[in-house]
């Protein structure tokens, strides 16, 4: 098939990606948007197979089948609570593919006489190797942390800033080497090797609640790596598709950083989460904590007209979303108005809580954003916090300094009564005590999230 026809097909694919993403950004059309983008991908793949440079099909067919099978099994089997790991893993594969494609393209360009080794090709190859390797290994570390193969806490190496700075300089120097001497293939693999170490070391110190930022950023990198590969192959469609993903990842990263009132460098290099609590905790909590039983809380809920539920990572950990759904239905059958207030960084990736609640059949109109929910707390009878901590800590609003100062929070403390479902008084990711737990209108309900909600349902039914 002629190159012109293939290029027209690529243009159609690129348009379908843009159209698909546009639809993906609206709740009503999102599902269709996903399939429009998938159709674009199918067209791109089919017309690439028709390219006359392709001499042998058997190996391609085998590779396509293996990749599809692994992808399909992963997608169908993964539990919704494990979605952050899944997204991290998929980001990684995208980055890995870019490294390999750019490497192969460099070998071909140097070896095939009629292909010019341009400056664009060599620079883009080095960039693909660098960004792709950082994405691949960074994503694998994020996956390992989320899957709890390694500790989810920040792992802080001594002199890590110095080590990373040296590695970054070395990678850049090697990249210059690739551009200067593209025929020395080992230089490219050295770039990939050093960038791999850099990828591991930049994600290892980042833990827990900062994961939404890291995952969004890696999402953006996987797009930029694809974009760089587009410059290597001189392929417009790759550049367009990669740019779209890069832009989407950057937007999400910005939203996440803003929701924590932290800059991106602060998240990447700040090492939050290692602050020891110490004696301040005792002063804040001493004698002020009121623990309540399921029966007491059930009585409160019985007379409540409006209830707002604030989910956090703890809900995901204890798999409480289905029990929470049952509680919502029970309360609604008694005429109580119930909705969810969701902080942008609740959980371990952007939108984590929404996915879990959707899995439990909660309609998305009930999932309020922070901006929608905050004015409602003053007219809320009971706010139930399940497994959230830092995102409801009034210190963020009231204190001028500290690890979470200035972070926008859900104003649950303004509700008439606050019920906090939590296993203990242990601090959240920021490592600081939460005065909300000691507030006059707060009742602590010490239990595992799922068990707590199930007991609460039974207590309500017994009233």
């Amino acid at each position, binding site marked *: 098939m002629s190159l012109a026809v293939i290029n027209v097909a690529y243009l159609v694919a690129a348009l379908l990606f843009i159209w698909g993403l546009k639809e993906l*950004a609206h709740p009503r059309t999102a599902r269709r948007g996903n399939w429009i983008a998938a159709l674009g991908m199918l067209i791109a793949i089919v017309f*690439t197979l028709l390219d006359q440079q392709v001499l042998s099909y058997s190996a391609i067919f085998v590779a396509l089948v293996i990749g599809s099978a692994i992808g399909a099994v992963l997608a169908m089997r*993964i539990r919704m609570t494990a979605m952050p790991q899944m997204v991290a893993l*998929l980001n990684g594969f995208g980055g890995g593919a870019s490294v390999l494609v750019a490497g192969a393209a460099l070998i071909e360009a140097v070896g095939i006489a009629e292909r010019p080794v341009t400056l664009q090709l060599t620079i883009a190859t080095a960039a693909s190797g660098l960004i792709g390797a950082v994405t691949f290994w960074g994503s694998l570390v994020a996956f390992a942390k989320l899957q709890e193969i390694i500790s989810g806490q920040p792992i802080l190496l001594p002199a890590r800033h110095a080590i990373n700075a040296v590695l970054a300089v070395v990678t850049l120097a090697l990249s210059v080497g690739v551009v200067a001497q593209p025929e020395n293939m080992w230089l490219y693999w050295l770039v990939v090797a050093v960038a791999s170490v850099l990828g591991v070391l930049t994600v290892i110190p980042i833990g827990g609640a900062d994961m939404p930022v890291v995952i969004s950023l890696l999402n953006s990198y996987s797009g930029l790596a694809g974009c760089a590969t587009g410059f290597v192959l001189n392929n417009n469609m790759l550049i367009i598709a*990669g*740019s*779209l993903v890069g832009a989407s990842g950057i937007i999400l990263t910005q939203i996440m950083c803003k929701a924590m009132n932290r800059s991106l460098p602060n998240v990447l290099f700040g090492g939050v989460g290692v602050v020891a609590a110490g004696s301040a905790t005792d002063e804040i909590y001493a004698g002020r904590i009121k623990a309540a039983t399921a029966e007491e809380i059930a009585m409160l809920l019985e007379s409540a007209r409006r209830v707002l539920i604030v989910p956090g990572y703890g809900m995901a950990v204890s798999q409480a979303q289905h029990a929470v759904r049952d509680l919502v239905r029970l309360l609604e059958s008694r005429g109580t108005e119930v909705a969810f207030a969701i902080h942008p960084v609740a959980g371990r990736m952007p939108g984590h809580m929404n996915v879990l609640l959707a899995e439990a059949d909660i309609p998305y109109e009930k999932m309020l954003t922070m901006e929608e929910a905050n004015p409602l707390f003053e007219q809320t009878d009971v706010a139930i916090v399940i497994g959230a901590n830092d995102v409801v800590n009034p210190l963020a609003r009231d204190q001028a300094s500290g690890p979470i100062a200035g972070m926008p929070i859900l104003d649950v403390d303004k509700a008439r009564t606050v019920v906090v479902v939590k296993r203990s008084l242990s601090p959240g990711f920021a490592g600081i005590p939460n005065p909300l737990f000691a507030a006059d209108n707060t009742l602590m309900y010490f239990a595992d999230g799922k068990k707590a909600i199930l007991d609460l349902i039974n207590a309500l039914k017994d009233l």
Partner: protein
Amino acid sequence: MGDFVDILTIFVLAILVGFEVISKVPPTLHTPLMSGSNAISGITIVGAILSLGMQHTTLTAVLGFVAVVFAMINVVGGFLVTDRMLGMFKRKE
């Protein structure tokens, strides 16, 4: 150099289109947007197929083979898991 400027133009415009199209995504869709856009970044599969199909050297074929597998996991896994998630998002009856 003309080629490079052309391709750079496309890059800059595509980034702008990306920002414009995605800027106001409701938080409910943040995760599906990530997994769906991630599937699109598997577009490197085009380059992988060409390297594997050209069979320039054994090494490029092997690199191409692994790259096709990686990219295809990304593409199929990404689109399917996004569809599975979006299938769960329901409106009030």
